[in-house]
C-alpha cells in the first residue's frame, strides 16, 4: 500500500488563500454585530501580570496592549502604544515615544507613568510573582525604566538584547487603578475573577462587560480606542465578543455545527465531520499551516548524583544507552511520522525536524539532518553499536549483556500525544527494546523532569514561538527545562557548550541576518545530536463563518489576532 499523497491538502491551502484574497475585496466594512467563540476553560484571573497560563491571556489580549505589537502576518514588530522608538549606538538605550491621545477605557489619559509603573512597580516588584519578570531579566540584571516626559520613556539595558522589541509587547497596566493595591501589597490577589468588570481597565479595542463563571465572558467595544483603519474608520467594528466556556471539544463542535458558535479550531480527525457542512453552515475551513510548538521524545542523559542518597539519578547501565548517540539515532529512525500524521491527523500534519516551526519565518532552518522511518536501518545502527539479541529471548542486549529495558511515559489527558507515544513504543518494541509504557498525570511527570530526575524516556511537547531566544531555558545547559540534563554547572558535552555560546551570542546580536546564521547552526546541532527527537506537528485548521470580513488567520496568532479590524459583511 502506497503512502497517501498529500496533494489534496496543498490544493486546499491554495484554495484557502484564494478565499482570503477574494472576500475582503468586495465587502465594505460595517459597524456592529457580535462574534461568538468558545474557550476550553475559564480564565484564571484578569490580571495580565500574575496570569500563569493561556486561557487568561485569551481575555486579556483584547483588553490590554503593549508598546509594540507583532504583526501576525508579516511576523514583524509594529508600533502599538508607542508611536516610534530609537535605539542608541551601543544598543543599550531605547527611547519610546508614546502615542498621544490614547485613553484608558475609563477615560483617564495614558502616559509614561503607566509604563514606568508597569515595569518598576509591578514586574520588578519582589512581592509580586510574575512570569514577565523573567523575560526582562538578563543575567540577573533588570532594565532601568525612566520617564523622560509624559509621552517619552527610556529603557536602559545592562547588555544588548536582540529580542527586546518583541518583548516590548508586554501589556501595560493602568497606574491610577492599581497603585493602591500595590501599596497595600495586595496586588497578587487583585483583578481576580471576583472583580467587577468595570474595574478592569485597559487601552485595548475591547473591554470586559460580564463574566459568568463556567459559562461565558463577554467583551464589548471600547469606544475610546485609538486605532483607525486604513480608511480612517474608528476601530473596532464589532460590538461584542462572546466567549462560551465549553470544556468538551465535541460539545463545542456540535455548537458550531448548530450555528451557535462562529468559529472552531479543528484537529485533522474532525475535518471529515466539519468540512462537508461548509456550504450548509456557511463557513470556510482554513488551513493556516503547521502549529507552533513541538512534540518530541527525550531520553534522560543526566549523569548527576542524588545528593541525598548518593546514588546516580539514572541507572548507569541505562545512562550508557541514553548517552549513546547511535542509540538515539536508531530511535529517530523508528518514528513513523507519516503514519502518525495519517492516523492521528488525517493527513493534516507536518513532520518536525527542528526546534523552530516551519511557520516561524526567518529563523526556521529547513536544512537540518532528517531521519526517515526505517526500522531496518535502525536495527542496523543498533547492531553496529553492539545492541543485539545475544540470548535469543527476543530482546536486544547491550555489549555488557544487559537487556535494553526502560520506562517510557507521557502525560495523560492529551490523547494525541498518548497515541504518538504508543506508536513509538510499539516500534521500539519491534526493534527489540523492552519498553514499559505509562501515561502519568502532568504534575507527576513534571516533578520527575524537574526535581526527582528518575525517568528514562518521555514524550512531551512545548509551546514555541518566533523568537529562538525565548527557548533559552530549554537549550542553555544551565536551564531548568534543559530536560535531558537540566541545570548543569558546566556543559557536559561539546555540542551543549556550543549551543550555550550560540544563545549568548545570539541574544546580543542585533543584526537579524547574523542572528539567523547562529540559530541555523543551533538547529543543525540539535538535529545531529538528538537531545530531543522530534515527531510531528498538527496543522492549524480553523472553521470560521463566512459572514466575517477582513479575516487573516495565521498559525502564529490564530484566526482573530486582528479582532479590531474584523467586521460583519453586510
Amino acid at each position, binding site marked *: 500500500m502506497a503512502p497517501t499523497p498529500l496533494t489534496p491538502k496543498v490544493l486546499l491551502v491554495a484554495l484557502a488563500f484564494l478565499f482570503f484574497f477574494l472576500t475582503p475585496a468586495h465587502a465594505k466594512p460595517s459597524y456592529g454585530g457580535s462574534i461568538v467563540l468558545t474557550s476550553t476553560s475559564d480564565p484564571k484571573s484578569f490580571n495580565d501580570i500574575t496570569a500563569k497560563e493561556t486561557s487568561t491571556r485569551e481575555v486579556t489580549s483584547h483588553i490590554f496592549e503593549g508598546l509594540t505589537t507583532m504583526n501576525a502576518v508579516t511576523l514583524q514588530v509594529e508600533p502599538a502604544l508607542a508611536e516610534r522608538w530609537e535605539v542608541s549606538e551601543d544598543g543599550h538605550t531605547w527611547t519610546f515615544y508614546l502615542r498621544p491621545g490614547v485613553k484608558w477605557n475609563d477615560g483617564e489619559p495614558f502616559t509614561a507613568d503607566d509604563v514606568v509603573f508597569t515595569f518598576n512597580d509591578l514586574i520588578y516588584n519582589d512581592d509580586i510573582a510574575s512570569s514577565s519578570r523573567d523575560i526582562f531579566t538578563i543575567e540577573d540584571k533588570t532594565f532601568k525604566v525612566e520617564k523622560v516626559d509624559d509621552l517619552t520613556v527610556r529603557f536602559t539595558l545592562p547588555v544588548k538584547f536582540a529580542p527586546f522589541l518583541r518583548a516590548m509587547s508586554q501589556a501595560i497596566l493602568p497606574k491610577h487603578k492599581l497603585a493602591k493595591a500595590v501599596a497595600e501589597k495586595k496586588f497578587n490577589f487583585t483583578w481576580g475573577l471576583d472583580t467587577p468588570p468595570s474595574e478592569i481597565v485597559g487601552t485595548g479595542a475591547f473591554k470586559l462587560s460580564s463574566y459568568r463563571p463556567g459559562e461565558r465572558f463577554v467583551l464589548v467595544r471600547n469606544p475610546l480606542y485609538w486605532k483607525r483603519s486604513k480608511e480612517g474608520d474608528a476601530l473596532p467594528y464589532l460590538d461584542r465578543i462572546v466567549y462560551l466556556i465549553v470544556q468538551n471539544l465535541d460539545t463545542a463542535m456540535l455548537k458550531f455545527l448548530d450555528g451557535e458558535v462562529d468559529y472552531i479550531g479543528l484537529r485533522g*480527525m474532525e475535518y471529515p465531520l466539519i468540512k462537508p457542512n461548509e456550504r450548509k453552515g456557511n463557513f470556510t475551513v482554513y488551513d493556516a499551516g503547521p502549529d507552533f510548538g513541538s512534540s518530541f521524545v527525550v531520553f534522560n542523559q543526566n549523569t548527576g548524583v542524588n545528593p541525598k542518597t548518593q546514588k546516580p539519578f539514572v541507572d548507569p547501565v541505562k545512562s550508557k544507552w541514553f548517552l549513546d548517540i547511535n542509540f538515539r539515532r536508531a530511535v529517530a529512525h523508528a518514528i513513523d511520522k507519516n503514519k502518525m500524521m495519517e492516523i492521528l491527523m488525517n493527513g493534516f500534519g507536518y513532520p518536525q525536524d527542528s526546534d523552530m516551526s516551519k511557520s516561524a519565518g526567518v529563523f526556521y532552518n529547513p536544512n537540518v539532518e532528517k531521519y526517515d522511518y526505517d526500522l531496518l536501518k535502525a536495527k542496523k545502527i543498533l547492531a553496529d553499536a553492539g545492541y543485539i539479541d545475544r540470548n535469543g529471548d527476543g530482546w536486544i542486549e547491550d555489549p555488557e549483556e544487559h537487556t535494553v529495558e526502560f520506562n517510557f511515559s507521557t502525560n495523560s489527558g492529551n490523547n494525541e500525544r498518548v497515541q504518538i507515544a504508543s506508536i513509538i513504543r*510499539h516500534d521500539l518494541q519491534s526493534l527489540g527494546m523492552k519498553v514499559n509504557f*505509562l501515561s502519568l498525570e502532568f504534575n507527576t511527570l513534571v516533578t520527575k523532569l524537574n526535581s526527582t530526575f528518575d525517568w528514562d524516556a518521555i514524550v512531551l511537547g512545548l509551546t514555541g514561538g518566533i523568537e529562538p531566544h525565548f527557548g533559552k531555558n530549554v537549550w542553555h545547559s544551565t536551564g531548568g527545562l534543559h530536560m535531558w540534563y537540566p541545570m548543569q554547572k558546566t556543559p557536559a558535552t561539546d555540542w551543549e557548550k556550543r549551543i550555550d555560546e550560540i544563545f549568548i551570542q545570539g541574544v546580543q546580536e542585533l543584526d537579524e541576518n547574523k542572528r539567523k546564521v547562529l540559530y541555523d547552526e543551533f538547529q543543525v546541532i540539535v538535529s545531529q545530536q538528538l537531545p530531543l527527537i522530534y515527531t510531528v506537528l498538527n496543522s492549524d485548521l480553523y472553521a470560521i463563518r463566512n459572514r466575517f470580513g477582513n479575516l487573516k488567520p495565521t498559525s502564529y496568532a490564530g484566526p482573530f489576532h486582528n479582532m479590531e479590524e474584523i467586521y460583519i459583511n453586510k
Partner: protein
Amino acid sequence: MKNRAWSQFCENRWAVAGLIILGIIHAAALFADFLAPYSFSNEERTYSYAPPSKIHFRDEQGSLVPPFVYGAEIKFDEYRRRIYQDKADEKYPLSFFVQGDKYKILGLVPTTIHLFGVKEPGRIYLWGADSRGRDLFSRLLHGARISLSIGILGVAISFSIGLLVGGIAGYYGGKTDDIIMRICEMFMMFPGFYLLLALRAVVPPNFNSIQVYLAIVVILSFIGWASLARVIRGMCLSLREREFVLAAKTMGLSDLRIIIRHILPHTLSYSLIAVMLSIPGYILAESSLSLIGLGIQDPYASWGNLLAEAMGIVQIKFAPWILLPGFFIFITVMCFNVVGDALRDVLDPKTSQ
C-alpha cells in the same frame, strides 16, 4: 433448602439467561488468547479504522468456496474520509487452528495456535479495527480479562475487609464499634470519584502496567469496603445474641474464630447478593478512570480504555464499531444486576416467603 433456592432461581428466565451470558463472557476472557486471532498489541497501521471484514463464501463467479477475506486498500475522499476498498486480486482464506502470535494457554503452556485467522499479510477484523489497525475483537477479548478480573478481584478484596471489619465492629460492639463506624463514615464522606483520582496520584509513577493494574484494583476496593462493613456490622449486632454464639463462647473459642467461623457465614446470602450487585461498580469505575487517561495503560486493553477511545463524535460517526466495548460493559453490568436481583429474590428472607 439450597436446592429449592436453586430451582426457584432457575424459574427466573432472565436470571438464567444473565448467568449464561456471564458464563460465556468469562469463559471467553479466560481463553482470550486462543479465541482471538491476534494478540492485544498486534498492530498494522495501514488498516487504521478498518471496518469489520466481510467474510465471503462465494467467489466472483458466485460459486461456493471456502470462506475468505479480501485484502484492503485505504483511500481518502475529498473530505478526507477513509474509504476501504477490497483488492480483488488479494484473497486470504479463513482457516482454523492457525499459527499466530505467541501466548501461553492459561499462562502455562506456550503455543502459537489460534482458533481462526488468515495468512499474513492479510488481516481479519471480525469487529473492525481501532485507530492503529489493531483487531477490536481480539482487544475486546483481552480487555474482558482485565475488566472482569478488576471486578472480581476488587470485590474480593473489599469484601474481605468489609466482612472482617464489620464482623469485628458488630461482635464487640461498644467503643470498638463506635470507633470503627466513625472511620467507615469518614470513608463514605469522601466524594468517591475524586478520592479515586487523588489516590490514583499515590501510585508510584515508575510502576509498570501490571503493577498499575493491581494498584487500581486495590484503590477501588479501598473505597468500596466501608458501606459493606456497615451492613455486616448491623447483621452481626443481632447475630451475636444468638444461642450458637453463646455456645461457641462457652466452648472457649477465640473471638476471631467465632467471628469468622460462626457469625460471618450467616451473612453469606446477603454478601453473595451484594457481591453480584457491586461488581458492576468496579467495572464502571475503571472505565471512568480510563476516560481521563488514568486507567489501564496502552497497549494493554480494558473495556474502559477501549471505550475511552470511542468517546468522540468523530469516532462514533466514522467508525461506529469501536463503540462495541461500551456495549459489552453494558451487557455485563446488566447481567450482574439481573442475576444479583434474582439471587436476592431467592435468598433474602425478607422477600421470599
